[in-house]
């Protein structure tokens, strides 16, 4: 207590201490960006998704694999756009189907990532992320860090670092 404190100050300080105590016992949370490709849902760590881009013109480049859609101008910077469906071995959607581009950033690489929809950006308790089950398809296992249950979906949490690393080396 300091000289000049009013009851108001003391009440505020007491309330702040209680709030701090609550924060201290809170379980750490993880921000996830949940996306869908058709009826399959996937998630990325929020820290690896810099932004969800507004509709942009994607410029096709010759000599690139089908998984590399082209490049896009993001406020004066040029970013590549890769198709998540192709990277995960899923068939391409019908032409003209709505989609979005996420800007993914890891320590090794940054790129736009084409997805069908962004379902949600949410915070989940760390304990909600569980070990991936053995039923995950073989080709996805190196990419899946865990799974999280969300809106009646079992959502694989994808390791964007691994995905990008595989992409650069031609593994995907």
């Amino acid at each position, binding site marked *: 207590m300091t000289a000049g404190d009013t009851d108001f100050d003391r009440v505020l300080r007491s309330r702040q201490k209680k709030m701090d105590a609550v924060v201290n016992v809170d379980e750490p949370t993880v921000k996830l960006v949940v996306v869908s490709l058709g009826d399959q849902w996937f998630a990325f760590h929020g820290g690896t998704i810099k932004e969800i881009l507004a509709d942009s013109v994607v410029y096709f480049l010759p*000599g690139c694999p089908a998984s590399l859609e082209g*490049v896009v101008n993001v406020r004066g910077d*040029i970013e*590549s756009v890769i198709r998540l469906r192709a990277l995960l071995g899923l068939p391409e959607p019908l032409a003209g189907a709505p989609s979005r581009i996420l800007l993914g950033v890891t320590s090794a*690489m*940054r790129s736009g990532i084409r997805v069908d929809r962004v379902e949600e950006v949410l915070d989940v308790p760390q304990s909600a992320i569980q070990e991936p089950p053995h039923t995950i398809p073989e080709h996805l296992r190196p990419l899946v860090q865990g799974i999280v249950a969300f809106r009646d979906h079992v959502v694989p949490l994808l390791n964007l670092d691994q995905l*990008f690393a595989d*992409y*650069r*080396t031609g593994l995907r």
Partner: protein
Amino acid sequence: MPATTDGLDVVSFFAGGFRFAVESRHVHGMLADRDADTVTVEDLIGLPLERDSTKSHPALRHPVSRKCLLIGGARDCVEVGGPVELETLPADSLYPLPPPVKARMSLGGIKGLAMTSAGILLIVDLAAVSASARTSIDDLVPPRSSL
């Protein structure tokens, strides 16, 4: 004048239905007809040849005419698709290839790209690709003394 801080002087052309540009300092002339040693730019960089690129690039309004550019110190004759134009690309339109593109692009000699109001141009180092191709061919031909 090869380059300034304001821009890059290039000769632009079409290949395989896409727009490319080579630094103008590497271009020593242009011929209307090909000679026996002429190679196509598509062969040099590994792009499928498309004679009628009006189908794939909206900027083209007439059938492609082919020209030969004299490239590099050896004046290699490289056939490209017209229209062939001399232009200056503003510095702020020039970009390096994004790393995923650089890692996965199969075309040879692509140094970067320019984004202009007319679309994308791929900047290609034809002098280096041409010199490299010539060296490869020379390696295949045994020296006269061994014939």
